[in-house]
C-alpha cells in the first residue's frame, strides 16, 4: 500500500517537505543499508541457482536429444556422507541462530560459543563436500562422467564459494568478539550472517533435493 501510494504521488502538485510519504518513509528505512543490500543479493543468488535448476531440468528432460541422440543419463552414486554434510550445515545454521539470540541478549559467552560453532560447522561442511567430491571420483562419477555429476560439481562448487564468502565475514566478526569486542558491536554482522547462513541452507536443501529427485 505504501509503495503504491508513493508511486501514484503527483509530485508536481505538492511542493513541501514530504507531503505524502513522510510517515511511511521512516518505516521503509528502518532496515540498515547492509540488510537491504544483503536482501538484494539474495535475489541475485536465487536467480543464479534457479537458472541452474532450470537448465538442469531442461537438460534432464532430454532438451539435447531431439536430434536423434540417445539420452546420456547414467545411474548416479550418492555418497551417504552427503546426508551427514546436510546435517552439519543445518547445525551450523542453528548455531548462528543461537549466536544471534546471544548477541541480542548481550550474552557474550554464548555469543562466542555460537560464533565458533557456526563457523567450525560450516568449515566441516565444506571439508565434507570436498570428501564427497573425492568419493565420487573414486566411484567413477567424476565431473565429466555423467551429466548429473557435472551438475552436482557445479552446484556444490558455487554453493561452497558462497559459503566461503560468508566465512570471511564470520572470520572478521569472530576475531572482533574474541578480541574483546562487545556484543552490540557485532550485532548487525551476526544478524546478517545468520540470515545468509539460513539462505545458503535453503539453497542447499532445494538444490540437493532437486538432484536427488531426478
Amino acid at each position: 500500500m505504501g509503495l503504491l501510494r508513493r508511486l501514484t504521488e503527483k509530485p508536481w502538485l505538492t511542493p513541501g517537505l514530504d507531503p505524502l510519504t513522510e510517515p511511511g518513509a521512516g518505516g521503509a528505512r528502518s532496515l540498515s543499508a547492509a540488510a537491504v543490500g544483503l536482501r538484494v543479493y539474495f535475489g541475485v543468488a536465487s536467480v543464479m541457482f534457479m537458472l541452474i535448476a532450470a537448465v538442469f531440468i531442461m537438460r534432464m528432460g532430454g532438451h539435447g536429444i531431439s536430434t536423434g541422440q540417445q539420452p546420456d543419463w547414467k545411474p548416479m552414486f550418492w555418497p551417504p556422507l552427503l546426508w551427514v554434510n546436510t546435517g552439519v550445515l543445518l547445525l551450523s545454521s542453528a548455531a548462528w541462530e543461537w549466536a544471534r539470540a546471544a548477541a541480542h541478549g548481550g550474552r557474550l559467552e554464548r555469543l562466542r560459543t555460537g560464533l565458533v560453532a557456526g563457523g567450525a560447522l560450516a568449515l566441516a561442511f565444506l571439508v565434507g563436500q570436498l570428501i564427497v567430491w573425492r568419493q565420487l571420483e573414486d566411484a567413477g562419477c567424476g565431473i565429466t562422467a555423467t551429466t548429473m555429476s557435472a551438475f552436482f560439481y557445479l552446484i556444490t562448487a558455487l554453493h561452497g564459494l558462497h559459503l566461503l564468502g560468508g566465512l570471511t565475514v564470520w572470520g572478521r566478526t569472530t576475531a572482533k568478539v574474541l578480541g574483546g569486542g562487545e556484543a552490540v558491536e557485532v550485532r548487525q554482522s551476526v544478524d546478517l550472517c545468520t540470515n545468509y547462513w539460513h539462505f545458503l541452507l535453503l539453497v542447499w536443501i532445494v538444490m540437493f533435493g532437486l538432484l536427488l529427485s531426478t
Partner: protein
Amino acid sequence: MAYSTVADDTRALHHPKTWVGKYVWSQDHKVIALQYSVTAIAVGVVALVLSDLMRLQLGFPGALKFITPSAYLQFMTMHGMIMVVYLLTALLLGGFGNYMIPLMIGARDMVFPFVNMLSFWVYLLAVLVLMASMFAPGGPTGAGWTLYPPQAILEGTPGRPWGIILMLASLAIFVVAFTMGGLNYVTTVLQARARGMTLMRMPCTVWGIFVAAILGLLAFPALFVAAVMMMLDRVIGTSFFMPSLVSMGQQTNYNGGSPLLFQHLFWFFGHPEVYIVALPAFGIVSDLISVHARKNLFGYRMMVWAIVIIGALSMFVWAHHMYVSGMNPYFGFFFATSTLIIAVPTAIKVYNWLLTLWRGDIHLRVPMLFAIGFIFTFIHGGLSGLFLGNVSVDVPLSDTFFVVGHFHMVMGVSPVLVIFGGIYHWYPKITGRMWNATLGYIHFWVTFLGVYAIFLPMHYLGFLGVPRRYYALGETTFIPHSAHLANEAITIAALIVGVAQLLFFYNMIWSFFRGPQADPNPWGAATLEWQTPQTPPAHGNWGPTLPVVYRWAYDYSVPGAPEDFIPQNVPPDGASRHHVT
C-alpha cells in the same frame, strides 16, 4: 533519525589522506565513476577501431592484407562484446550511475563505498583479461559476440586455444564486478535519499539507472552461469551445451548437451541487456530534454511507470532472438506478442519526449542536439524492431544486414548519442570548465548524419539478403552491384564518423585544462547535482549539511517564479500552483 543512513554519516566517508587514496584506491563515487568512464571509453575506442577495420574489409575486400577471414571474425566478436558489455553497460551504470545517483538523490556517497571501489577494480581486471586474449596464442575468440556453442569451442573457430577461455573468464569476472556495483546502486537509491526526496521526486535519470541496475542483477547471473558452464565444457570436457558430434573427422567425447540451452541462457541475459543500456539512456534523455526545453517533463509519472514496465517486460521476450533456432510455434507466438507489447510503454516515452518539446523554450545547445538526435535514431531502430519482432518477418531477415542496421540504431547509436549528450551536459559540473561549443556542434552533426549514412543503407542491404558476419560477399547473383557500392559508401561514412570522434576527445581534454571556468549551474537545471556548494563537487558532496528536497525535479518555467527554474532544494513560498503536466 528516520533518515540516518550510511551516506549521512561523514565519519564513514574514509577521507583520503594520500594522492593514491584520492585518485587510485578511491572510495569516492565520483572518482570511481571517472575511473569506470575512462576505462570504458578507452576499451570502446579499441572496439571502434575494430569496427572501422571490419568496414574497410567489407567496403574494399582484400585491401588490407592482415585482415584475414579469421581476423575479421575476431574483430567482429571483440567489437560486439566490448561495445555491449564493457563500454555501454560499464559507462552507463558504472560511470553515469556512480556519478549521478548520490548527487541526484542528495547523498554523500554510495552506501557501500569499499564494495564500490572493489567493483571498479574487478571490472578493470575483466577488461585486462579480455584484452589479454588479443595477445594470447591463437588470438581472441572469433565465435561471434553471442558465443554460440558448439562452434565457439570447437577446433576451427579462431581463438579456440585461449581466446574463448579468456573471453568466458572475463565475462564471469565482469558479472562479479557488476553485481558489486549493482547492489550499491539499488541499495543507495532505496536507503540514502535525502530528506524529502520521495521516489516520485527522483529525476528520470535515477529511475532509469535504478531499474537498469535491478535488471542487471537479475539478468547477469544468466551470463555468469552460461560462461561457467561453457568454460567447463571447453576446459574439463563436460557436456552441458555440447552435443555428441564429429569435429575435424574425429568423434568428440561430448555427449547429449544442448546448444539451445546456451542460447536460452545467453538471451535471458542478452535481451534485458538491451534495456540495461536503454533505460539509463531513456532517463538521461528525459532530463536533458526537460532542462534544455525549459519545460517540465510531460507525463512524469507515466515516464517512470513506463521505465518500470519496460524493465519488467524485458525479462519475458528473450526468445525473439531465437526464432530461427527452432522452437515450439506457440513459443514464437508468445514471444512475438510480448515483444510487441513493449512497444506500448516505449511509444509512451517517445510521445512524452515530443510533448515535452512541444511549445518548449528550446535551446539547441550541444547536449540538447544529442538528445533530439537520440529520439530520431531510437524511433528508427525501434520501428525496425517491430519488423523483427514478428516471427514471419524475422525469419527471412535473420542473419542479414537488416538486423545489423536495426540493433546498431536502437542500442548502439542511440545510447551512444545519449552518452555524448550526458557528457556534454554534466561536463561543466564534473570538471568545473566549459567545452568548446563549435567543436561540439561539428561533432554532433558529423556523428548524427554519419550514423545515418552508415546504418540506413544496411536495412536496404538486409532486404537484398546480404548476410551479416561474412568476411567477403564474393560474386553472387542475388547481390547486385549496388550493394557493393553501398558497402563502399558505408565504409567511407564509418571512417569519417570514427575520425570525427577525435574532435570530441580533443574538446574534452583541451577544455579540461584550458576551457573557461564554468558556471556552477550553466543550464539552469533544477536537479540536486547542480546545487552542490562546490563545482566540481568536493568529497562528501554537500558540505556540512545534506540538502533537503521540497519539490520534484522538473519545476521549469513555473508561472510567477522569479527564475525559469526552481531547484529541488528551494522551499515552497506558499503560492498556489497550477502546473500543467
